[in-house]
């Protein structure tokens, strides 16, 4: 196993991804240089793949990841790690809108801030944001955990179906149909263990845990007979 350098530059993205895939298939670690904020880098990689992108990336970086470890040296554009089912993506800078969109599993770790709609439609897995998350983060998420140490923007966790948003600082406002609850000691230690696995220790944090108030789970008129009136 060795480390292979792949130049993104202005090459067609299909060619760059093919080079990444064949290096991964050979068992090599991949370093992508001259990333130029290109879209669609390192899409759909599987377990065992290790890719480091030296620079900033555009949209959907690490999208549909199934087990790869992807590290972005600087910032990521929209929807980094979208629909990821397994694996680990680290963004060392900031992430744009919709980071971790509809992800099903795995871990997305953002060291800076994340833009609006972080974890939108999320179905599982964990998102850790060391900074804060933008407005409408967690919008209509189904399951999984978003942990934002730096707090959140407006309408945090709006219309959550399920899942949890953990905040280490105040949100600007909570979204509709949310409920802030006191986490149990076990839950706090589980979040702390997750953070510790990433080398983060925050024993002093007064956690705010946001969950669904479940009022939007049903139309208010729930009588099944009522549906027959039409």
């Amino acid at each position: 196993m060795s480390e292979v350098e792949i130049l993104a530059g202005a090459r067609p993205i299909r060619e760059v991804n093919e080079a990444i895939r064949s290096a991964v298939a050979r068992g090599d670690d991949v370093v992508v240089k001259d990333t130029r904020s290109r879209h669609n880098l390192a899409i759909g990689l599987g377990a065992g793949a290790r890719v480091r992108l030296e620079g900033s990336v555009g949209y959907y970086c690490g999208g549909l990841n199934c087990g790869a470890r992807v590290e972005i040296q600087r910032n990521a554009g929209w929807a980094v790690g979208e629909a990821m089912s397994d694996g680990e993506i680290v963004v060392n800078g900031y992430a744009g809108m919709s980071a971790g969109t509809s992800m099903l599993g795995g871990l997305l770790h953002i060291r800076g801030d994340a833009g609006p709609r972080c974890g939108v439609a999320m179905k599982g897995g964990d998102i850790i944001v060391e900074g804060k998350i933008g407005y409408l983060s967690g919008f209509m998420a189904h399951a999984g955990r978003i942990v934002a140490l730096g707090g959140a923007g407006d309408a945090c966790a709006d219309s959550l179906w399920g899942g949890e948003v953990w905040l280490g600082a105040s949100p600007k406002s909570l979204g509709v149909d949310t409920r802030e609850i006191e986490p149990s000691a076990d839950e706090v230690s589980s979040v702390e263990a997750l953070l510790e696995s990433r080398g983060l220790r925050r024993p002093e944090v007064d956690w705010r845990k946001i969950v669904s108030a479940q009022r939007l789970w049903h139309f208010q008129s729930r009588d099944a007979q009522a549906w027959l009136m039409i």
Partner: protein
Amino acid sequence: MADDLTEYEFPFPPATEDSIAMRDGAAANRPAGVPESYDQGKSARWSPKAIADVHAMSQLGRYQLRGFNTFSTRMPTFDDLVFVPASMTRLPLEGYRESCETETVLGDRPGLVSNPIRLAIPIYVASMSFGALSANAKAALGYGASKAGTMTCTGEGGMLEDEREASNLLVYQITPSRYMLDLEHLRMADGIELVMGQGAKPGTGGVLLGMKVSERVARMRSLPLGVDQRSTVRHPDFLGADDLQVKIEELREATGYKIPIFAKIGATRPRYDVAIAAKAGADVVVVDGTEGGTGASPEMLLDHTGIPTMSAVRAAREALDECGKSGEVSLVIAGGIRSGVDAAKALALGADAIMIGTAALMALGCNSPRYFEDYEALGTSPGRCHHCHTGRCPVGITTQEPELEERLDVAGAAERVARFLTAMTMEITLLAKSCGKSSVHNLEVEDLRALSLEASAFTGVSLAGIDRPFTW
């Protein structure tokens, strides 16, 4: 004269009020000349339905919600168009003997898509989710379509194993809610459809009431059991045309440029939307007219949003022509197609392929006259049922209740779907051959005439006889 004041007096004694009211010989409770409608309340505005709607909404405290499709009586229909077969100027083909090409290829872009979708016929089964439909219904549609040489589409509830097994060709939908969307399932698909809207309720997300969110449905959608699922309408990770282009590239990267990417829109502004989808890189654009069906929708959206299928086809085809994408990007049309006749007219207006949803359910047995007492319990009867939203489908199609689902015999239903698709195709080829066409894809606007000013104005098809389109 000031209103009804008059100074004039007859030169004879004034009449009695009974005499003026013509009460002699009249019904006791109504003077002659007072119309019967006073009793019957024949207000055009406050029809019995309008009154009942207010009563229902004032009890429910929300909009009405139901399945099926629009009840609007104001839609133009394909019945306003007729074919003008070959006679002296053109030569017909032998309708009962000569062959007519029906193969339909979607996403055939050499050098870009390595596995375009090859259908034996120009019709396939529309996207209807597992959740809206029972697993038996999905499987029967899949097997029926496979036998007829065509395909089905998953709908938004994720890819059901039963359907993947049944369908030789399966398009996998990506809706804004992204239920069960991962790489594994993308790579199991023969095509991917990005859904930007649907005909029944363009601009609004899907609805699945709690009665149908069973354990299996909830698991596939990662939803709490029994919730009234109301889906998002805006995609979580792209907004406009430029983003869509990047998204399509991502999907190609994820699937190795093997399978075509579809973009589905509800018919609202097809001239612009189709051009944008084509320019953004979709291989197939699907336009779903307002007559399109649904498992559940706020009722007023069915009747008051979107434009009719017939009017959308021409605009969609002209849009592809105008941006030079005809022949490169395929156009699929859906929404209220009932027969091979409707489908042939849509092909002539410019479609490359036709999707059927409700018609395919009818072939499964939707609204068939059986289990009368169960229709009655829903307050309806066979032929009028539109209660897909309740999950109590008397014939096992739009339900998640095991005892109802059992009523749908997969083998029998699959055979009916296959036969219906075959019959529809025979209708199309018969019409095509009468127009002298050796391929159903050679049907053209010139083969049609409009029977109404409205149909002509909507489609640009020449009026019957005068052979000129209605213009202003």
